[in-house]
């Protein structure tokens, strides 16, 4: 039996921090994007939709490469880092959060958008005829009715952030406690022939993934039965 070393613990906490923060940010910026994509009638919204979906098909290295340029000292990220005296966002936790948000965006936006679209016009119109302002209609009707989409989006965003590897390696590198997340740690352990530790993390992630998907499915099933 192998004990979980402080090195692994640090990777676990870092990963959870990154995934949680990324998911929260994704829900905050993904919801208005998804709402706009679901409701807008302009033809060019699909161009924005495609832009959001790009990380689904781009090799993580391509995304990582451009992010590296953007976050580096000569990019907007470097300028931004200059606000608090740093030189670059590349190879920092903050940079990793930005990269993760962009990389996981489609996994959050798509399910929420689908859920918003599935509501249809009618409940929103009914709310408007009952004197609900657009904001109240959104919070009291659209958000609760799109619950399944938010669940799926949050879970996918969280899990996908945990599972990301290529982008992390490109923009974050392998700095313990700063950018060394679990997926990179496995790679590192394998490189250095520490198979047992690699095995421990890998197996843990398999169980985690299994648990997450099963729980999500069961919650969704229950919501459906209760009329949602």
């Amino acid at each position: 039996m192998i004990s979980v070393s402080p090195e692994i613990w640090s990777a676990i906490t870092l990963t959870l921090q990154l995934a949680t923060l990324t998911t929260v940010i994704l829900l905050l910026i993904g919801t208005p994007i998804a709402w706009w994509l679901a409701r807008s009638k302009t033809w060019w919204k699909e161009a924005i939709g495609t832009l959001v979906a790009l990380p689904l098909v781009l090799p993580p290295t391509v995304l990582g490469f451009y992010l590296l340029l953007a976050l580096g000292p000569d990019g907007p990220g470097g300028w931004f880092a200059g606000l608090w005296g740093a030189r670059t966002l590349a190879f920092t936790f903050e940079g990793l959060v930005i990269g993760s948000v962009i990389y996981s965006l489609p996994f959050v936006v798509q399910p929420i958008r689908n859920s918003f679209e599935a509501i249809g016009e009618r409940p929103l119109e009914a709310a408007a005829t009952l004197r609900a302002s657009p904001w109240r209609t959104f919070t009291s009707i659209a958000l609760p009715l799109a619950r399944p989409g938010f669940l799926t989006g949050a879970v996918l965003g969280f899990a996908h952030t945990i599972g990301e590897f290529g982008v992390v390696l490109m923009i974050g590198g392998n700095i313990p406690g700063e950018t060394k997340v679990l997926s990179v740690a496995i790679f590192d352990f394998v490189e250095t022939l520490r198979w047992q530790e690699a095995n421990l993390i890998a197996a843990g992630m398999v169980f985690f993934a299994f648990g997450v998907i099963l729980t999500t499915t069961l919650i969704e099933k229950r919501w459906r039965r209760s009329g949602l």
Partner: protein
Amino acid sequence: MSKPTTSPLPVTSTAIQLALAGQIGNFSLDLEINAPGYGITALFGPSGCGKTTILRCIAGLERLRGTCRVGVETWQDDNNFLPPHKRAIGYVFQEASLFPHMSVRANLLYAIRGKEPTSHEGGVGYDETITLLGLAPLLARSTANLSGGERQRVAIGRALLSQPKLLLMDEPLSALDLDSREEITPFLEALHANMKIPILYVTHDMSEVERLADHVVLMDKGRVVAAGSLEQIQGNISLPLARKRKATIALEARASGHDAEYGLLTVEIDGGHMQVPSQPMPNGTPVRLRIRAADVSIAIGKPAISSILNILPAKILEAEDLGHTERIMVLGVGIKGDGAQLLARITRRSWDKLSLKVGDNIHAQIKSAALAFGR
């Protein structure tokens, strides 16, 4: 098509003035509607003639060029367009459109943000609405397992509780099966009798118009063909309604006695009285009679011996051929013909045999008359 009949509808401070123009689908809509500030005004016409679009424009859910005034408020003109949530309307959609994530009670209270009002001044009270629509047993239930009729009743209650100045109903019965319709119609009649606000009621079903409407706007392909009181529209023989095989006239009447032995209710109509099969009702109860043109025949002089219960002296006011063999006429009850108006359809042969002409005094034999409803 005959030229539009423009009859002056009584205008009150809450009258509805609407003028709309625009393209919808493959035809253009161009109309003016003035509806009174009380009672049920039916927008009647074939499917796809623009009735629903009109309601949606009044609600602000759709926008065409034009103006929309309700009472003293202007909801739309050339410069202004009030968004839907700022218009004091209640909207009952074809499908109930209840919020699936809320209980019946939460749906009902949505418009008043969850607070149970005791009674609203001049508005619709909570308890009153619950009683009127029989909602008490449904309150705690989820919307998922309500029947179609129950859902629509909740939707009507929800619309009423939003304290509308105008209730818009878009074919509220058409998505329901026959049983649900039968179940909900008495509630609509109760609504009709108790509501102080005007109701615009869209339908393509004439029997709903006969049971519920006070005023009718006859529509076809985005245009108003005629508008007026139910009697005016039904009794206008130049309009298609009176020329149909099932042409019927609805008469407002009041109960004035009951013959328990034969189960017959005596009712007063303008210029006479009639007997119709019915349960007893308190004297003075307003009722509505339906008399089909085909059930009214003509006799000269009062027939001494007849099985027909209701024989009224009347005067022929108008007559027109209906094709080659029949003739439709408008009769005014009373010697002077100034009472309630009836439609009668007879063969041209009978017309000639009796040498009838407009202005003649005759007796109208009404073979059957039924209560459309008692209220």
